[in-house]
């Protein structure tokens, strides 16, 4: 990052996350600028998904400091595993959205309600406003004609596109993608990547993407971070990482996945 770069939107400073005896993030430092598109790659268990899950407040962490949009994740004197009040966590969450590996659509709701429900309940939009927003987003992901279907009637690729529309309906500043295509049949990966690729052109949206789709990562990212053993082992522009990796672990990993 250069000297005149904007203040980071997300800042991990010495964050340590343990599951029992297992250290998943080890004195982890990481910054993301507003609007930046960052891809996290690395072997499984290296802590990539944990970074996203901590940002979404799905997991607490034990040590260090994390801020998003100037909000610290842990409040001074905060209690509970997150060391913060639910009210504070909800303020943080209002800036963040997440797309999951297994879609996690609500099976009892139509596609339309999946997308429109939270804007009504959480943001306080009227049904009409929320549905208009949902119609626009569903058109954007190419599923305008599926709005009255139920998730079980859609293919995996279609479900994931609905999930992206659902996350976008909350207008997050930061959108997290946790292996969005890993649960998909190979022939359905392309349609989901196309939608994510379109989003990468949105200037204001900050994106963090955990993926094994290396070619896609190279196309859409401003920066690629290679994770190993709970730390970022090497990071840089996609060209630098994919054409001239300097760290032996990076070379080893890329050789194994790009075969």
């Amino acid at each position, binding site marked *: 990052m250069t000297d005149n770069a904007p203040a980071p939107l997300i800042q991990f400073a010495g964050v340590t996350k343990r599951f029992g005896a297992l250290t998943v993030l080890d004195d982890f430092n990481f910054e993301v600028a507003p609007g930046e598109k960052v891809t996290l790659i690395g072997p499984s268990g290296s802590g990539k998904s944990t970074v996203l899950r901590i940002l979404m*407040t*799905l997991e607490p962490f034990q040590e260090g400091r994390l801020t998003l949009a100037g909000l610290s994740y842990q409040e001074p004197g905060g209690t*509970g595993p997150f060391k913060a009040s*639910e009210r504070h966590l909800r303020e943080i*969450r209002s800036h963040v959205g*997440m797309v*999951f590996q297994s879609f996690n659509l609500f*099976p009892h709701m139509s596609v339309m309600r999946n997308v429109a429900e939270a804007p009504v309940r*959480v943001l306080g939009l009227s049904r009409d406003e929320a549905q208009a927003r949902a119609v626009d987003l569903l058109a954007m992901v190419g599923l305008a004609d599926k709005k009255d279907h139920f998730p079980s009637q859609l293919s995996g690729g279609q479900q994931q596109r609905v999930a992206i529309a659902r996350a976008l309906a909350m207008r997050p500043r930061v959108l997290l993608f946790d292996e969005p295509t890993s649960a998909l049949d190979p022939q359905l990966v392309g349609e989901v990547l196309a939608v994510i690729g379109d989003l990468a052109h949105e200037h204001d949206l900050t994106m963090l993407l955990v993926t094994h789709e290396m070619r896609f990562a190279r196309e859409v990212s401003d920066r690629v971070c290679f994770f190993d053993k709970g730390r970022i082992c090497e990071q840089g522009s996609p060209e630098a990482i994919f054409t001239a990796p300097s760290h032996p672990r990076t070379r080893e990993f890329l050789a194994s996945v790009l075969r």
Partner: protein
Amino acid sequence: MMYGFTWDTATPLTYAWSILPIILIGLTVTLKAAAAGFAIALVLGLVFAMLRRSRWRSVSWTTACVVEFLRDTPLLVQLFFLYYVLPEYGLTLPAFLTGALALGLQYSAYTSEVYRGGIEAVPRGQWEAATALNMTRMQTYRDIVVPQIAPRILPAMGNYMVAMIKETPVLSVITVLDMMALANMIGERTFEYLVPLTMVGLIFLILTLICSAGLHRLQKVLPKAGIPLR
């Protein structure tokens, strides 16, 4: 409440016919008590199940103790306790309300276990998606969890409803004039218990059969309407 009624004990059939109006009055009381009790059990059971999953240990632990206590003590003891002990502390409830409350309390302990099983079967990803959409816990329960578990827990809830209907005669011991209490009073007057008690038994049998048939039907209709039961 039996003044003005006459009964004809000439033959069992005429006897049965003459006391039927009284028994049916008792039936309405029985049904009201069961309905009120089950409504309490449905609401309170969900509250217990939610409290039991609270993030605060003290809350979940206390709830677990209360539920266990309600489950493991006899309904009759709870009933007498509410009816005779509470008034000593200034809380006097009518017999019917006391009865409905006792039924509701005991069965809320059972229904809370049904809710708990249902809630635990909801995949973690559903909770995480709700969190990612910034829903509160209450919103998550109301919009995501309960609608998903409702069809699945329906059969178990139905069984408890039938069981509760069959337990309502217990309320007669605290002077609720349900079907059983009235049949008993008729017996005391006529020294002829066979017919009134048989009628009560038959009416319970019919009630239970109706409920079971209704449940069976729901279990067939719901999957056709696209609501899976498992």
